[in-house]
């Protein structure tokens, strides 16, 4: 398998693990693929360089594999009996959008809070439509597109 194909296999194993509800480690991906851990470590590094994933600095722990977050966040997404964390509201609605794009069940419930007033804010994706519990809710991005990757965790 060439490097590009191997990196694709690693990326898909990462995404499949997240879809299954688990943040994957190098060891878990290596086990899934029957691959050498060192090779998977190198693939994690290349995927991070290519911005397909974001690693916790100094580690190979996955901080982000958009739309998934590697740990708890204020953007919780429930799809069936699976619960996910997203990095931001774009990623939160991106989880059902991604699942629908793959032909999977995508009805979702998103729980977050209003950044302005801290009130709980719920959104639902039902049969391909996004609705909110608050009729006049709007989306907000603070960081201009050109600076998103200057600090992607803040963005």
């Amino acid at each position, binding site marked *: 398998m060439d490097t590009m194909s191997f990196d694709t296999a690693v990326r898909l194993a990462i995404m499949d693990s997240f879809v299954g509800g688990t943040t994957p480690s190098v060891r878990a991906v290596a086990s899934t693929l029957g691959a050498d851990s060192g090779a998977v470590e190198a693939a994690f590094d290349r995927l991070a360089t290519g911005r397909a994933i974001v690693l916790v600095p100094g580690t190979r722990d996955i901080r982000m594999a958009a739309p998934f977050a590697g740990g708890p966040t204020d953007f919780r997404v429930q799809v069936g009996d699976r619960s996910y964390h997203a990095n931001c509201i774009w990623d939160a609605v991106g989880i059902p*959008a991604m699942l629908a794009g*793959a032909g999977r069940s995508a009805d979702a419930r998103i729980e977050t809070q209003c950044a302005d007033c801290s009130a709980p804010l719920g959104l639902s994706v039902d049969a391909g439509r996004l609705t909110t519990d608050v009729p006049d809710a709007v989306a*907000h991005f603070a960081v201009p597109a050109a600076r998103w990757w200057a600090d992607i965790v803040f963005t």
Partner: protein
Amino acid sequence: MRWSEKSGIPVGEVFPLESLWRLAQMWFHDRLAPSWRRVTMDEAHAVFEQAGLTGPFWRLDG
């Protein structure tokens, strides 16, 4: 906006949830496909425009 006053972070862009949903659908629909790759800057700009998100805020080369 109160959060902006409290945090000192300037207000960026506020836009309808319909645009957010269109953006997410176009951005993430193929993320589980083996053929997925990062979009180019031009492709990203086209996605933003199709979602109704235009102006300097949405320029990656700004």
